[in-house]
């Protein structure tokens, strides 16, 4: 692989992976904060308002990190992927510009009101500002998903005389069928992160024996939301997304499952290591015929394997794609199990005293981040070797004018910068959690 290409790929992959650690929590927390604010208004209970204020602080820190690591994403379309931008900007410029106009303005203006304006606004107006922040963050997600969905499944474009792609149908782009499933699956994933983080912090307070009233609220809201969204994550959103890939990117599906040889009654591999050189799975643990059933709803259906496709159309990194996909699915399954047991204990009124379960909730905290990251790796590695599926290869899209040396310079800069940001973030969030929801009111500045 050309070394400049490799540098630009790692550059984008690293910055976007780090970036998405933050929006997944803001998008996941936003609806939960609205729930807390609503409960506070309905029950006229100050505890819920304190809870909402506590999460607003965590939200604020996350939002800041999301913004400062998000700006480089928009820039990199031009700086590192200029040939792609020139080729496809006439189409995806639409969704990216719309994100700025419809989502960012809404989100940033009302976040200012939400964080700084509680005393100036009536309780109802403050509730509305929380709703506006929720709406803005979820809209933002849609425009980004629509952009990625277009790269996965290009629609609504026409080729111009100079070879670039130009928009031919606005609604086809905005209502891309690929975007619907991907959006539903992605937002549900973000909501799982929000739910587990909330439940985990609540479990921490209960185990600590401090802020227990708030801790119970956090655990209750987190577990109920977590159960709903972890089920939605599997069905219908994950299932829908999977069948869409089977229909439109069969080679991607074969690589995700590491199905080297096509067969009827294809097995679903639960564990095992893909051996790409010998085209087999080492140490397989599999469920016979399950892949055929999940994909086509028929136990004997024929699923195409990688052998049905020329190797230059295979995703380049079959093993990493396979692991990303399996980690995502494996963790998703574990989340459903954790949430089912927690919800059952909650229903029986035993959860708050079941220390073993609280410990599990506490330690679950990093895993939704891993699952969401693995999910995005599945989507993006699965699209390879294409940048725009079937139209432009990744190797043709990067900035030819920016040498590997210049790219490496800024990649190292981002590595250093993001290390500092990550440490600061952990330090600040830990501090807020230890202060708790009812510490002395600390002014923001």
């Amino acid at each position, binding site marked *: 692989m050309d070394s400049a290409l490799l540098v630009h790929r790692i550059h984008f992959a690293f910055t976007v992976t780090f970036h998405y650690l933050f929006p997944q929590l803001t998008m996941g927390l936003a609806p939960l904060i609205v729930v807390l604010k609503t409960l506070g208004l309905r029950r006229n209970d100050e505890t819920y308002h304190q809870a909402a204020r506590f999460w607003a602080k965590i939200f604020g820190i996350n939002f800041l990190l999301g*913004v400062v690591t998000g700006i480089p994403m928009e820039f990199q379309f031009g700086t590192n992927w200029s040939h792609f931008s020139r080729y496809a900007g006439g189409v995806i410029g639409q969704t990216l510009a*719309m994100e700025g106009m419809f989502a960012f*303005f809404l989100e940033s203006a009302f976040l200012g*009101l939400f964080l700084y304006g509680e005393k100036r606004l009536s309780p109802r107006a403050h509730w509305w500002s929380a709703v506006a922040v929720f709406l803005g963050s979820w809209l933002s997600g849609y425009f980004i998903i629509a952009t990625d969905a277009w790269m996965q499944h290009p629609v609504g474009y026409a080729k111009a005389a100079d070879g670039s792609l130009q928009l031919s149908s606005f609604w086809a782009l905005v209502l891309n069928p690929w975007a619907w499933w991907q959006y539903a699956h992605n937002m549900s994933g973000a909501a799982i992160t929000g739910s587990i983080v909330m439940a985990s912090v609540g479990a921490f307070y209960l185990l600590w024996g401090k802020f227990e009233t708030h801790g119970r609220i956090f655990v209750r809201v987190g577990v109920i939301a977590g159960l709903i969204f972890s089920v939605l994550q599997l069905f219908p959103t994950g299932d829908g997304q999977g069948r869409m890939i089977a229909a439109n990117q069969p080679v991607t599906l074969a690589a995700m499952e590491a199905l080297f040889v096509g067969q009827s009654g294809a097995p679903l591999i639960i564990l095992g290591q893909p051996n790409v050189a010998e085209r087999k799975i080492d140490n397989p643990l599999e469920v016979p015929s399950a892949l055929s059933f999940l994909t086509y709803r028929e136990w004997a259906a024929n699923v195409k394997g990688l052998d049905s496709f020329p190797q230059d159309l295979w995703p380049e990194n079959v093993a990493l794609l396979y692991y990303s996909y399996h980690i995502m699915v494996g963790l998703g399954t574990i989340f459903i199990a954790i949430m089912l047991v927690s919800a059952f204990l909650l229903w029986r009124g035993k959860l708050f005293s079941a220390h073993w379960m609280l410990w599990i909730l506490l330690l679950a905290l990093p895993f939704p981040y891993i699952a969401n990251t693995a999910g995005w790796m599945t989507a993006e590695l699965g699209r390879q070797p294409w940048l725009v599926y079937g139209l432009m290869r990744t190797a043709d899209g990067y900035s030819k004018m920016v040498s590997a040396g210049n790219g490496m310079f800024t990649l190292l800069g981002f590595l250093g910068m993001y290390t500092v940001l990550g440490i600061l973030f952990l330090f600040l969030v830990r501090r807020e959690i230890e202060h708790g929801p009812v510490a002395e009111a600390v002014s923001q500045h």
Partner: protein
Amino acid sequence: METLWFMIVAVMVAAYVVLDGFDLGAGAIYLGAARTSEERRKILRAIGPVWDGNEVWLLAAGGTLYFAFPLLYASSFSGFYLPLMMVLWLLMLRGIGIELRGHMEHPVWMGFFDLIFCASSILLAIFFGAALGNVVRGVPLGVDGYFFEPLWTNFRVGANTGILDWYTILTGVIALVTLTAHGSLYIAVKTEHELNQRARTVALWAWPLQLVLTVIGLVATTYIRPAVLDNYKQHAIGYLIPVVVFGSLSLMIYAIRKGQDKLAFVGSALYIVGMLVGAAFALYPVVLPSSSNPAYNLTIYNTAAGRHGLTVGFTWWAIGMVLALGYFTLLFRMFRGKVQLEGEGY
């Protein structure tokens, strides 16, 4: 249609500079004008609810540029690769400086964040000015519409110049002085007593510098790129722009002397808009001149997206802009008036 989008992008860039400009300027005078911790918190409180929204104008303008002129976006962003990445790092540091200071209740670290906020604000103002200087001066565009500029070469304006030469350094300094005055006047509007007085004093000192630099900048621009006068010669209405520039400068000094901070701030905003519109008017229809061969100039015509996309885009853009103006009116109305530290927010 291309002309319309040229104007829209120009207006959005101007909106960004006027809005984020005052909080960049507030950062530039932050260490000098605010001495006590309380005064510093007042400055941060004055820009706290709005700076992030202001910065979104940069993103929105960038997104709109990408959408309307994809080739210009691709070419300029990859060509200005290094300085743009540094701008990103500075924007990060600055955001952290503003927002995280309040989370650290330790005097040592507060001082550290204060310094980061001030230094990154100053550097960003210079970078943005130098960026505009590069666009006016031209870059070594090749036949394929791409270029790559090193950070500096020999600091002379010429065929193989870098991002920084004497001209772009000059425009960087002009931007710093302009935004310093702009930010001082905003802080004067938002504060009382000593801080208000000191902010006014900064603006008063910056003014003569701004006047002299404006004149030098105009002369230097016509010297390095005489073509900037073409549009003015053809359309005499363009001469209104320098009238607005010098008129707004006069308004600034009049209002500062009279102690009318709001009026002075309006004058400063007008001055910034005048300077930017003047540059856009001089360039049109070129958007990035080639320093090697005028035939390689990037213009609104050879960089624009397809006609259908531009037409459809105008519909949603207009809707989005009306909404955005609504939010911002609401936001600035909610936080109007002088900054008080006690009993606000959390």
